[in-house]
């Protein structure tokens, strides 16, 4: 079932936008499924907050329509949309108890007290808030408060989507993980669509089924965490996701071979690229192997960073910097090593966009 449809949606905060840069959100068309967990990922200023505000009804888009469950809600005010929102910092009603906080949206909608009580107890149990129900919400910790603001959304039986606006910003690091898995658990139990806005790739990739990566007002890729990792469609996605991000090396193409400086790499497939385009070869650090001299392309090691689980070697190939994931134990006889690229994992990017090979069957 379709939860949410965006049709030719675009927004500019200027009254007479003329150039593409005038748009805070460039035209997008999206269909999101009911019960899905989506993340809007991108650096600040990429337009994700604008998109969220359009969904919550705070901003009316300058063009395009928004449909919830096939109902046009483009101009509908916030309170008439069946959405809930969890904000960056906890929004709770200070003077009320946890129970009164959770009951507030139902009371405002005129639900009968018995129904309110059942519903509140149910949601409180789901969020592990049952013990604190009769405490003043003001004195609770930040993560409990965030659960309350989530609970105020979930308690409404009519809610179809919950929007999260960087909800873990003020949560202690050790509790972040806990709250995030709580969100996942709730998502599995309730068939509610969740839309999670963040600039933190870990949060987005661990939370969402589908991640929408945005950059400069544009949706650059939508995909599962695996797709984003293995097959970034845009240079930005390659860079932004993974730490460190994808390596990009300027290259030229000749048949099934890519030429980097004086070296050739066999790609196994050929690409038809615009000869005037800026061509780059992209590969993640995980798909490069260090090898003894003579095996691959010669590199010089600049330094090796220890990240605990693995280590990252920073090397130079023809003067170009490259990051390579290396095993925790690496015997390096000398600084002169070589690298071997896993050619199945190589992506070719023309003018920042990934291009597909000519013949999918391969050579």
């Amino acid at each position: 079932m379709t939860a949410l449809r965006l049709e030719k949606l675009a927004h500019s905060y200027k009254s007479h936008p003329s150039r593409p840069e005038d748009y805070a959100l460039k035209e997008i068309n999206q269909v999101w499924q009911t019960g899905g967990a989506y993340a809007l990922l991108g650096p600040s200023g990429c337009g994700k907050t604008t998109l969220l505000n359009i969904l919550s009804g705070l901003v009316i888009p300058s063009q395009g329509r928004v449909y919830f469950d096939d109902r046009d809600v483009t101009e509908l005010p916030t309170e008439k949309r069946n959405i809930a929102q969890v904000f960056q910092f906890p929004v709770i009603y200070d003077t009320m108890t946890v129970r009164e906080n959770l009951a507030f949206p139902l009371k405002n909608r005129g639900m009968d007290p018995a129904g309110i009580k059942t519903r509140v107890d149910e949601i409180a149990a789901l969020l592990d808030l049952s013990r604190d129900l009769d405490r003043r919400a003001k004195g609770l910790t930040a993560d409990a408060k965030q659960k309350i603001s989530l609970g105020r959304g979930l308690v409404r039986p009519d809610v179809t989507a919950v929007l999260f606006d960087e909800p873990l910003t003020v949560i202690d690091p050790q509790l972040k993980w806990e709250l995030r898995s709580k969100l996942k658990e709730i998502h599995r139990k309730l068939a509610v669509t969740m839309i999670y806005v963040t600039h933190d790739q870990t949060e987005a990739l661990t939370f969402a089924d589908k991640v929408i990566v945005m950059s400069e007002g544009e949706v650059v890729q939508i995909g599962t965490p695996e797709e984003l990792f293995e097959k970034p469609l845009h240079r930005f996605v390659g860079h932004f996701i993974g730490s460190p991000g994808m390596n990009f090396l300027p290259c030229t193409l000749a048949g099934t071979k890519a030429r980097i400086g004086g070296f050739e790499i066999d790609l196994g497939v050929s690409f038809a690229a615009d000869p005037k385009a800026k061509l780059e070869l992209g590969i993640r650090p995980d798909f490069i192997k260090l090898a003894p001299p003579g095996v691959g392309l010669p590199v010089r090691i600049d330094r090796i960073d220890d990240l605990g689980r693995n280590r990252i070697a920073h090397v130079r190939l023809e003067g170009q910097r490259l990051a390579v994931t290396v095993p925790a134990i690496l015997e390096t006889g000398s600084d002169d090593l070589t690298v071997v690229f896993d050619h199945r994992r190589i992506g070719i990017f023309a003018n920042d966009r990934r291009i597909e090979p000519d013949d999918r069957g391969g050579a």
Partner: protein
Amino acid sequence: MTGEARELKPYNNRAWFMVLPVFLIVAFSAVLPLMTVVNYSVQDTFGNNTFFWNGIGWFKELLDPNSELGGRFIDALGRNFLFSFLILAIEIPLGIAVALSMPRQGVAVSISLVLLALPLLIPWNVVGTIWQVFGRSDIGLLGWTLTGLGIDYNYVSGVLAAWITIILMDVWHWTSLVVLLCYAGLRAIPDAFYQAARIDGASRWAIFRAIQLPKISRVLVIAVLLRFMDSFMIYTEPFVVTGGGPGNATTFISIDLVKIALGQFDLGKAAALSIVYNLIILTVCWVFYTVMTHVENAERRVQL
């Protein structure tokens, strides 16, 4: 100056050097005169600068409702409390209502702020003069309109009219302070709270009860206490408008005090009255300070 913050502050008595100038100038202005007052309060004089010891005689008289001075004092004190009560009952709700209706952005904010603050910066006796003129039935718009409507309004002879004029004047003069305090408190509420309330389907009244009132409670406490104290000390404005009359109907303590001190040069009585009056205010001030630091501490605890 709150408990939590103090714990973190280094202990350094050389800080006294930085406080010394303030201490000296305030002591010069406060301690020396107060010593004079205390000195006067225990003496009597027949003029010619000859004083003799009167012990606590003045205080006894002051606190005895059957004496002339005591009766005057008790009556004035009662009027002071009634006046402060009425002022708070009108200005606080009105101030909140106006603050709620303030625009949130744009040039309208600046214009509203300046117009609202205007009465606060008018010298107090000019405030009195403005209302003295405004209320006159021959040349004042208010008095003329009321008389024209057939209402018997004369603040010089009518007790009720005098009280209404003074209260209206104080509302005119000081409600803006409450408005500005509340407005500042309201401005500090993040937009997310209003968005959340809209999503929760809250009515205008529910938003006020659940968000706005709790968030401005701190400034509201300040507003109540400031207005209480300033209205309790009121002197200039009623003095200009009614001179304390008709009869003694609007004679507040400070008006009486100045009458006794500078009018009759009855130094002993005036001094005793000053001390008692000051003690009352000091007590309220102490309560104010305690409440303030308590609220600030509680807030800081929550933030931690």
